[in-house]
């Protein structure tokens, strides 16, 4: 690169670095605060680095609630939700993209419309249904409502719609029907979309707080975010322990993100609308 071009890029880099700083600062704060004592953690003006690095905070945070069990629950519920959502999303998305049947567009619109409904509006009706089915205090109540979602169907439909018709015709000539084409051709071609959907599901399951709070009572069934409420109280918050707990909770998500980053960006970039 010529040096003139380098200088022209400088403003862009400055803006990006500043933006990066803003995005990274909360994580920096979270990690450094997790090592402070309670006085330093709540000091104003803020103390940037702890005077003594209290590794014991992580042990105390881990012991404050049954986090091991919570992790397992989140993985179980998240895994099941993601798997089910992928399957239903693939089937519905493929049908809406490539199978001609009457009312296809209307159904697609309806699925899309469900994406617009704020979750808070659904809490009471969903709870009434879940309770009548006898699923209160079960894993099923945490998985079933999210086993299919309009967002995944939309995303996957867009991807399947982009597959050239010639491929399908070629597969038909070799004796394949829709289902076989879906599983053996369309799905392998749409890996970015599948990874994106899986990631969204995984992150949403990881963040799930309100719904599991409402449908579970027993500690043994609860996911990870409910564990963080152990650090808050009517009269104060143990900030240094809360930060340690939050760091523990975030680490697996960060790991998954780093591993799947390439797929995720590709998936978002390619989920464009084409005519």
């Amino acid at each position: 690169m010529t040096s003139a071009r380098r200088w022209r890029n400088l403003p862009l880099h400055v803006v990006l670095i500043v933006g990066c700083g803003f995005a990274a600062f909360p994580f920096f704060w979270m990690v450094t605060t997790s090592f402070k004592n309670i006085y330093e953690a709540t000091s104003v003006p803020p103390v940037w680095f702890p005077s003594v690095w209290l590794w014991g905070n992580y042990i105390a945070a881990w012991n404050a609630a049954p986090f091991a069990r919570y992790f397992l629950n989140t993985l179980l519920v998240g895994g099941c939700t993601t798997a089910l959502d992928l399957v239903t999303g693939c089937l519905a998305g493929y049908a809406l993209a490539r199978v001609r049947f009457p009312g296809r567009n209307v159904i697609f619109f309806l699925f899309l419309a469900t994406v617009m409904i704020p979750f808070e509006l659904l809490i009471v009706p969903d709870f009434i249904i879940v309770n009548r089915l006898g699923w209160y205090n079960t894993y099923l109540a945490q998985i079933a409502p999210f086993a299919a979602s309009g967002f995944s169907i939309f995303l996957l439909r867009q991807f399947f719609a982009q597959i050239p018709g010639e491929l399908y015709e070629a597969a038909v000539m070799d004796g394949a029907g829709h289902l076989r084409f879906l599983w053996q051709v369309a799905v392998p071609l749409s890996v970015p979309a599948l990874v994106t959907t899986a990631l969204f599901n995984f992150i949403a399951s990881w963040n799930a707080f309100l719904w599991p709070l409402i449908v579970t009572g027993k500690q043994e069934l609860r996911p990870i975010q409910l564990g963080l409420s152990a650090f808050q109280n009517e009269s104060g918050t143990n900030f240094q322990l809360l930060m340690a707990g939050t760091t523990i909770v975030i680490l697996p998500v960060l790991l998954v993100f780093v591993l799947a980053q390439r797929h995720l960006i590709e998936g978002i970039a390619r989920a464009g609308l084409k005519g």
Partner: protein
Amino acid sequence: MKRLLGVATAGIMLLAACGGSASAPSSAPSSASPASAAASAKPSTAAAAAPASSGPASTAAAKPSAAAPAASGKVSITFWHTQTGANGQTLNAMVAAFNASHPTIQVNAESVGNYNDEYQKLLAAAKANALPDVAVAYENVVSDLMKANAVVPLDHYVNDPQVGLSLDSQADIFPGFVEDNKFKQFNNQMLSFPFTKSVILAYYNTDLLTAAGVSQVPQTWDQYSAAMKAVTDYAKKNNMPWNGANALNDDASEFDFEIMSRGGQLISDDQKKSLFNNDAAVAALQMNADLQKAGAAYQPNGFDWENDLAAQKTLTRLDSSTSYAFIDPIIAKAPKPFKYVAAAPPTNPGVKLTVMYGANIAIFKTTPQKQAAAWEFIKWFTATPQTAQWSIKTHYLPVRQSAATSPDFAAALAQSQPLKAAFDILPYAKPEPAAAGWQQVRDILQQTVDAVVTGKAQPKAALDDAQKKADAALAG
């Protein structure tokens, strides 16, 4: 057609982005920020779900939620509470002790988040006919659920010759707690029982008071005002990093206290009209505004006052008697240690008063056996030995005066000055109103304090305005 589809899809995606959550529920933990983590004693109005008052009333027998399957002959009841951490462990241990000593009853205690979360859960459960058998609840929550016809009045149990409380036992409960749980708008029935109670105390940095020449802890509002100014002068003269002498607590509970301690009333007996627009309220607002202007008071955010007190950037704070459990570890780590005292909050001369915080416990309509079992649990939990033990371990206050006869409690009183101060003022603790609509009035009161103290409004004008809004809230 394809273009229309594309445009419509783009529009829907835009709206969906505004809506926030994608596929699965992704609401971040709502209790993560200190401001929303029940910084005030009462829960703010729940953001979710339709209000319970307009919901379909769960008629007589609400279906019990899925409790653990009962062993033969055992009555199994579900108990929702909001205790976490160490307090939660204490509660679980006590529930286990109850289960062990009562072989025919099994109490399943479930921690359901903070008070806001519990409120949302209770509302959802009320609509689904799936309320627990017994739950911790504030007065306004009990009010809402009573309107949905879900609460069991306790007078029948309290006065029952076999399972109830003797007259002596009833008189043993602090009168303020009894008053707190009798709901005027429901024929003065007792709809709940005291459970995790605390009172307003004033925390003072006594080293700072002495250094500034204030010889005794303020007992009247005039002494208080003078002390704030004296300590502020001292701090300024010595160039201390200083926020203000009083870390103003603008919560409605503290404002209610300031009015009542100056002889003012809050609400009419029929619970329909607000009475807080009086001289006492004007005096309270004026004092706070003057102190703020003189640099002798400031408004901290959330729990910041705890650190400010430890850093000696402030002198005092009116707050719950449970706070000392939190400020003790912070002060222990502070750079310059000092002594503090928790005192009865200041009042008009000759007045002994404080306002009570904390939640009560209510029984919901299920079956007669479960309701009876729930009453046994409440009766046991609030009996003298248990209420004393609960208070010692959790820093809440006992509900009975006879707790003082327990040797463990007497020892705890000797060791903990804040606990003793709270227990001594407890006979004079008064409840706040629990009328329908009072939750909104609390928000109005807090906004009034904020407006006057920051100089945006004059006390009388602000109170006139607040009265109009409050009366509307109480009426509708």
